[in-house]
């Protein structure tokens, strides 16, 4: 049995640029904005970093392949830099690489940085890859968009649980309204406007039954983390730092899309990754023990279903919890307290790190208007791909020694 990552690695600095339609900035500028903040936060010199992991998902529309855009932009001193990509889990993958490297003793101080510059395509939504989606896939797979692939969860979920689609749509609207309310308080969010449930319900459809406000934005952004071992953090004089409690990943094996056993109503991978993460972090009852979380709310229905996959809400019980306000800022387990993908948009390579950044700020009591009262453990979750084949990642971080 693997011993796990719990309490072995400390996060000593984090940074996050302002997300949005950053017409003013290229991917390089966004990275530097996040990186400078993290260096100042960690109070270290750039050259103390001895390894880096760099995440982008769609580099063909901004920086291009390899980790060179990272090492060159940040002028890193000829250290090993690795580019990682695993759909929407890319940012968490970069964090995982850096964390494991310091835990393994391969690095003293490692950087994880993610960036995506999505707003240089000339049109809304994620890029349409056409035949670049894969030479065989192009020849038969429907021309699915992200909202279209996730939208299908809604009718399948409603069918599975015998839910009136109108009730589901209302709960989805509440999911988005809650995030908009949170994002309005965040100066780094892209969308900073509270939106009512009724407005959300009445918005134009994007992919039935998802309307405009059921979808997260498309934004530019970058976020990063600097990590070292707990021992080294203590040596360096950090006090009350944040440490990693769990890092888990689960990938589909083709069962969902190819075998009759799955009903398109939930994420097999998230459920498995969550169980492993709770075991790794020593969490027995996540509904009580997790203080706050940032889940992958690419679409409102994704977030709603994820509550159940994370074993916070019981199966079929997410609608009730949502409507009870359980995930609201003043609820039992605040979710997307920074506004989520809903308000930050989803610069893919950066998102996992952006989520960790909010958990980190909250644990340090630095979340200003959004600050929760004495959070202990924060969970982040990414879901890359499509409901029927995906990459789920989960990270749990918390105050060290508390």
């Amino acid at each position, binding site marked *: 049995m693997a011993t796990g990552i719990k309490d072995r690695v400390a996060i000593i600095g984090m940074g996050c640029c302002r997300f949005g339609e950053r017409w003013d900035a290229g991917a390089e500028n966004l990275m530097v904005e996040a990186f400078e903040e993290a260096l100042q936060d960690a109070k270290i010199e750039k050259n103390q970093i001895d390894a880096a992991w760099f995440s982008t998902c769609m580099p063909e529309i901004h920086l291009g392949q390899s980790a060179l855009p990272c090492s060159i932009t940040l002028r890193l001193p000829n250290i090993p830099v690795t580019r990682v990509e695993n759909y929407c889990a890319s940012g968490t993958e970069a964090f995982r690489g850096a964390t494991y490297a310091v835990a393994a003793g391969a690095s003293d101080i490692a950087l994880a940085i993610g960036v995506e510059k999505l707003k240089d395509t000339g049109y809304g939504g994620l890029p349409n890859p056409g035949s670049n989606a894969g030479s065989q896939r192009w020849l038969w797979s429907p021309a699915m968009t992200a909202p279209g692939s996730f939208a299908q969860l809604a009718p399948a979920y409603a069918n599975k649980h015998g839910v009136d689609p109108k009730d589901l749509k209302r709960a989805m609207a509440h999911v988005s309204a809650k995030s908009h309310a949170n994002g309005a308080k965040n100066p780094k969010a892209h969308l900073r406007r509270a939106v009512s449930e009724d407005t959300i319900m009445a918005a134009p459809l994007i*992919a039935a039954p998802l309307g405009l406000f059921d979808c997260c934005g498309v934004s530019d952004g970058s976020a990063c983390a600097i990590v070292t071992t707990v021992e080294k953090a203590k040596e360096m004089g950090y006090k009350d730092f944040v440490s990693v409690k769990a890092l888990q990943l689960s990938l589909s094996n083709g069962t969902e899309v190819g075998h009759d056993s799955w009903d398109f109503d939930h994420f097999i991978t998230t459920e498995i990754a969550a169980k492993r993460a709770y075991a790794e972090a020593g969490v027995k009852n996540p509904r009580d023990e997790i203080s706050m979380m940032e889940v992958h709310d690419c679409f409102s229905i994704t977030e709603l279903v994820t509550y159940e996959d994370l074993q916070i809400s019981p199966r079929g019980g997410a609608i009730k919890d949502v409507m009870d306000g359980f995930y609201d800022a003043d609820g039992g387990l605040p979710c997307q307290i920074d506004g989520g993908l809903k308000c930050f948009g989803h610069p893919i390579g950066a998102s996992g790190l952006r989520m960790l950044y909010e958990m980190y700020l909250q644990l340090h009591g630095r979340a200003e208007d959004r600050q929760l009262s004495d959070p202990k453990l924060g969970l982040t979750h990414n879901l890359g791909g499509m409901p029927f084949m995906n990459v789920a990642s989960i990270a749990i971080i918390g105050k060290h020694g508390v």
Partner: protein
Amino acid sequence: MVGITAYGAYIPQQRLERMAIFQSMGWFAPAIIQFAQGEKATCNWDEDAFTMAVAASRDCVTGLDKGQIDAVYLGSTTLPFADRQNAGMVVAAMNFKPEVVASDYTGSLKAGTGALLAALDAVRAGDKRSVLVTASDRREAKSAYLYEMWFGDGAASLVVGSDNVIAEFKGSYSVSRDFIDHYRGADHKYDYTWEERWIRDQGYGQIIPEVINGLLAKTGLKIEDISKVVFPCLFKAEMRNIGKRMGFVEKVSDNLHEVCGETGAAHPLVMFINELQDSKPGDKIIVASFGQGSDALLFEVTDAIADLPPRKGTRGALANRKPVNNYQKYLKFRDLLETEMGIRAEAPTQTALTVLYRDNKMLMGLVGGKCTKCGTPQFPKSPICVNPDCNAFHSQEDHEFADSTGYIKAFTGDLLSVSVSPPNCYGMVQFEGGGRIMADFTDCEVGELSVGQPVVMTMRKRYEDRDRGFHGYFWKAIPQTAQG
């Protein structure tokens, strides 16, 4: 005995009300009202001569052992490829054995009867056992033209053989005359046509009587011996005039103008099947084409027609109709109206021909796998079984899904996805008996979709690579409504 052993047909579901054309364009071309009766069959945006040929062929081989087919002849003037064996694409889509002759017959509206004659020759010579003959056309006419009123889309399919013959071949008579009522230059989209009065008088009025008389003389029959005379003709009045002059006016087969329109090279066979479906043993039916001459063929219906397994044929295909009156939508579906498609539509569209060949059974024939260890059907066929309780290596045999029925597990109507028919509807299809696929849906409206709704699979166009002149096809699901 040699003759027809099976028939099938396909008429696209969408029927444009001809008055919709007049209402949009009558201000410009008032004369088109003369032919604005009824409705015309028109392809969905993802249908063409090839996809209709596959649909008609599938209807035709209902209940047949596909392994018996040893040739596929495809007649059309609007095949998607000038040089790629279109009949061979039908072979692949039908998942016939590759050891067949596949030939395209084209260049004239006689292409359908020409293919049929070639098939009859081959079977009579004893060289072939069963030949699938399919004719299909999707012709374009410019907006507000008489030919836009006349043309319809459709396909018909016959099997020619010597066992279980339902209509015995009794003889044929052909003439070839370089009579150019219309022509379409290579690389031209539209026909160029001469004056209708000349086509009527010197075309139909001369050539149809010539071949019918020739056929009667050759077979030693009189017109009184004939039950039905099938020939396409744009002018209903001239059909009656020819019938009157030759003494068979009550036996003239309906040209289906009000319910379908003229389906090009397919039309003689579409009309013939329409008559076969209403025939009785002993009926003698003449089928003649019209296109720079004519081929006339005589068939006598046999007792075996009663034993033919049920299929749609022309009548069933005509009954599956969805009236439409949106002329602009019709123009858009036929790519006759240039709309802004947005930057999103500029994505690359190249086809990897290596992949298309390597996975040809999967991509053209919807052939997946079935695990010989655990029995799980799956799509695509893969080196390791998808069943999580099995995962056997190299255990799968071919498994056809095209004729499987299924139902919708999940769906959406996507307005972001690039489509000429938004919202782009797709979802997960669960096949009865096992296996599933993420599939495009077609011939449906998003508001009619529901989880659990039954679907059938159909071969349709997925994309057109305009830079390279390639057409990409795959199978889509047609959600079944109570009406459909």
